[in-house]
């Protein structure tokens, strides 16, 4: 993907939230550049599996969030977002699994992130974004894409909607 390519028409915002007593639920909200919803997918809460936890060790969280929840959500997407934005570092490897560039919105600027900002990360309207994209042109494209979206809404905002929607779905299912 080159920097000259058009900005995405669809942004995917993906996250995993903790559901008390039930596990973790994932949500993918595909939005237009103006922040309008195109499609939404959420998972039922997935409880942690003790056996898997032992077998996967420290990689379990990544397996659960990315391989199980995240990839299931991305596969379900019909409109195929061109850029995935997440707020969970465990979902960053989705870029490799789905061949869709992934950027992560940092909750707060930490020293390590500051360092990343200078290489593979960037800051937009006070929000810090990091990525593990290696292609510099693609980083620039992702940066422009995030900047374009941020003209309508802050990047953090869609995650609020996802959390509200997962809460709503969870409340109804209970």
């Amino acid at each position, binding site marked *: 993907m080159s920097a000259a390519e058009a900005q995405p028409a669809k942004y995917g915002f993906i996250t995993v939230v903790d559901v008390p007593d039930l596990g973790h639920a994932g949500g993918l909200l595909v939005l237009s550049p103006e922040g309008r*919803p195109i499609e*939404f997918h*959420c998972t*039922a809460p997935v409880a942690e599996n003790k056996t898997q936890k032992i077998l996967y060790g420290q990689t379990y969280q990544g397996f659960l969030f990315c391989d199980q929840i995240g990839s299931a*959500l991305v596969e379900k997407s019909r409109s195929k977002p061109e850029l995935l934005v997440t707020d969970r570092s465990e979902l960053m490897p989705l870029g490799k699994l789905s061949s869709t560039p992934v950027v992560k919105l940092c909750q707060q600027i930490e020293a390590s992130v500051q360092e990343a900002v200078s290489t593979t990360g960037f800051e937009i309207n006070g929000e810090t974004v990091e990525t593990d994209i290696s292609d510099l042109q693609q980083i620039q494209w992702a940066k422009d894409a995030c900047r374009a979206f941020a003209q309508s809404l802050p990047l*953090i905002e869609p995650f609020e*909607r996802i959390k509200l*929607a997962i809460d*709503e*779905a969870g409340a109804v299912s209970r």
Partner: protein
Amino acid sequence: MNSTYEDLENPEADHGNAVRTSSIDLRMLTALADEIRFQPTCIEPAAAVAVVSASFRKRQSKVSSYFFSDVGVEPAASKSAVATSGSVDFLANKFNSGLQPAALPENRPRANKTAITKDDHRTHLKPPREVIKMGDRLFYMLQPPLESLLAGSTMEFPFPPFDFQYEGVGFLFTRYSAILADEMGLGKTMQAITSIRMLLRTGHVKNVLLVCPKPLVTNWQREFKTWAPEITVAAISGNKTQRAWHWKHNRSMVKIANYELMIRDEAIVADQELEYDLCVLDEAQRVKNKSNSTSKVIQKINRKRSWALTGTPIENSIEDLVGICEFASPGLVSTGMSARTIKSSVNDLILRRTKDLVLKDMPPRLMRDAELDLSQEQADSYFAAENDGVIRLNGMGEDISINHVFELVLRLKQICNFDPATQTSTKVDRLKADLEEVAASGQKAIVFSQWVGAIEKISESVQRYNPLQYHGRIPSKQRDPILDEFKNNPDRTVLLMSYGAGSVGLNLQFCRYVFLFDRWWNPAVEDQAINRAHRIGATGSVTITRMMMAGTIEQRIHEILEAKRELFNEILSKDAQPTNRGLSREEIFGLFNLSTPQGKIKAPSKAA
């Protein structure tokens, strides 16, 4: 594995690979061609733990999917359905197209921004309780925040709305039945107009009927011009033929009618061929009594949506709320229901915020009770009248009625204002002293009285402050110019108003002083009066002086009303039992320590 949303949504869902498609009936957003697809994933709930290898399957999560219409996304069939209904797109698109606003005055600040930032308050639309289907509920929740929707370049506001006002707009916008019961002065008018504006822009409503008290018609016209200049507004007026034409043929988006006129035009109003997408009742406490003629006519309006606006949903008793609900959501509650049942039933129907709750930084409202002593002349007249009156009432035996007591109360209250023989008045003396201070500081004051006669006497006494009068004897056409004169002429220091004419709907927030020359029977009406000045836009603290004569009927009424005011506040905020807010029969008798024919009645204590 936990229960899945698809089971909830569609109990008959095929757990194989078949894809079930169901159209969402969005009710309000009927045009939206949504589609929900439930595709169960491959793992069987029972197998998740039993076989370890099953846990290593790539996909374990069950996913519920919700697709929303947008160009290029929906299948052809769905697009067709959308096109037929004529409203395709998401809310934001609609806000930024269609109606173009008229140019705002050049000197008015633009409130809109191009984008909201991460630190801005964000208001998400919340689905009403009556919306049950998951897809429908998520449709609301997944919309961009209201601030973003309204930040479109063609939808401008003269002033930036407050956060709670966005929430109010979100509340009204999503509801077919709603009661916005914000405390006076929080901008119910602006919230209603903005919601109407959004509904008109998105095409969800085409015609709106707004019913308000007659003195407020011009106020509503003015507010529409300020907040939604692109909306065409027509006030129904004129002779019978002219009004009939307005009702039937005027194509304005919003028609404004007054309550009195509704009764006169009942035959037309009740015509079921006249259908309104939205009917808004301002000062909806006017229909609190289900059996009065106004309520009966209002009920006949053929409408799809019903919104009631009132700052005082409970004026006298919980039954007032039942009456208003009968308009907003007929049949939801009924007379005789317990307060607890009514409260839970209307929980999703009513939105009420108070200034204390939402306007932390609003200038304070400073209440001061001016307890004055009767002048010697007044005291002579007062106690003579009271003694004579009580003796006469006690002498009436079983013939005594509440009207007899009431007459005495009124008589005594009038003496508290002015001595009937000499026209001396301690209140006027105090008022003149206070007005001198008000005028010296370049401020303005409103003085409320129950009687036009008292207003005229006050006017004579405070001529040096160029008083203006605003009451029931002033013809409607002259009222707006009076308010303009008061606002714009710095020499006009004081406005003398009657509670009846001036207590609702007027924006006089440039006044820093309010005087209650005498007290009304109902704290809600007094609050309405006070809030003419203490409302959004108030530039500084508002000082309210409640005048009462010590040791008289006024002080006794004051104590009872204060106790009621406290209870009223609890009804709308907590699980408290409803009570009557006006003076009951027993309380009126109790003012004089009288007996009813059934026996001695004591005035209730404050704690009661």
